[in-house]
């Protein structure tokens, strides 16, 4: 449970910025159904910007809990797929 909460903490930063960008982009292009696709592409970019560039030292927090970068990137891709599917089903 603690590990899941920590993954949620990691994803929270990516989610809020990526979803805002995706919705804004969808509104700008006039097609809200594209939100999921935009999120799928924007969230990895946000992951890269937030954790690889801006707050790169925060990786050590997750390393100390036992996550490695592959798992953290995997969680970003997993959430992206889930959001994509969720929007597609709506």
């Amino acid at each position, binding site marked *: 449970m603690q590990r899941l909460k920590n993954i949620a*903490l990691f994803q929270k*930063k990516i989610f809020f910025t990526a979803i805002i960008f995706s919705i804004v982009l969808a509104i700008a292009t006039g097609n809200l159904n594209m939100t999921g696709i935009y999120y799928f592409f924007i969230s990895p970019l946000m992951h890269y910007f937030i954790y690889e560039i801006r707050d790169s*030292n925060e990786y*050590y927090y997750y*390393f100390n*809990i*036992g996550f*490695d970068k592959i798992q953290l990137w995997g969680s970003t891709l997993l959430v992206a797929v889930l959001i994509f599917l969720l929007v597609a089903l709506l």
Partner: protein
Amino acid sequence: MKRLQVDSIRKSYHQKLLLSDIYLSCEQGEVIGLLGRNGSGKSTLLRIIFGEEKAENKFVKVQDRIIKNVRDSRHLINYLPQKNFVPGALTIKTLISLFISEEKRKTFREETFIEPYLQQKFRHLSGGEKRMIEIMLLLYSEADFILLDEPFEGISPITKELIIANLEKVKPSKGYIITDHDYENVMKVADRILLLQNGTLKEIKSRKDLERFGYVTGL
């Protein structure tokens, strides 16, 4: 008693040999002080042991488990980097529930110096307070071995004493490798001192040895 074994570490940067066949071992209840000049490779060595940094050759083992990456070091080795690593938006109370195991949480929260900070966000603390909280988190973590990279950097003397006192308190259950330029405090807390120079480790017995190897002047 658990043992951290580090052997045959070899690392080069831009064709310059930084670490050459490094060997060291650390047992639970032991504190190793790692000294060395700027750029001598101390942080690199700690990151290699932790499993984060790759090396041309390395062998790191805790008991029967070989550490190849950070996933392997889970519950075995934790690392304090030079810069703050805790997400700033968290309150200390939340941080404790996310980082510390359930069994140790109550004891940790009741520590007199932690209590006043519980409701505060990590990002609102001063540099010294942040460092102290991070060190305490690692001291109370599940890991058997803790690698502390410059724990005394930017810390007031009284906070240093507090950190050393807490380190002594949990010392029997963990092994530590500490590197810091505050060599006097490192020497005070460490059972063994090693000096990293020209890619190799040298055993230091006294301040005289540090002078002999040119780490400090004889003044």
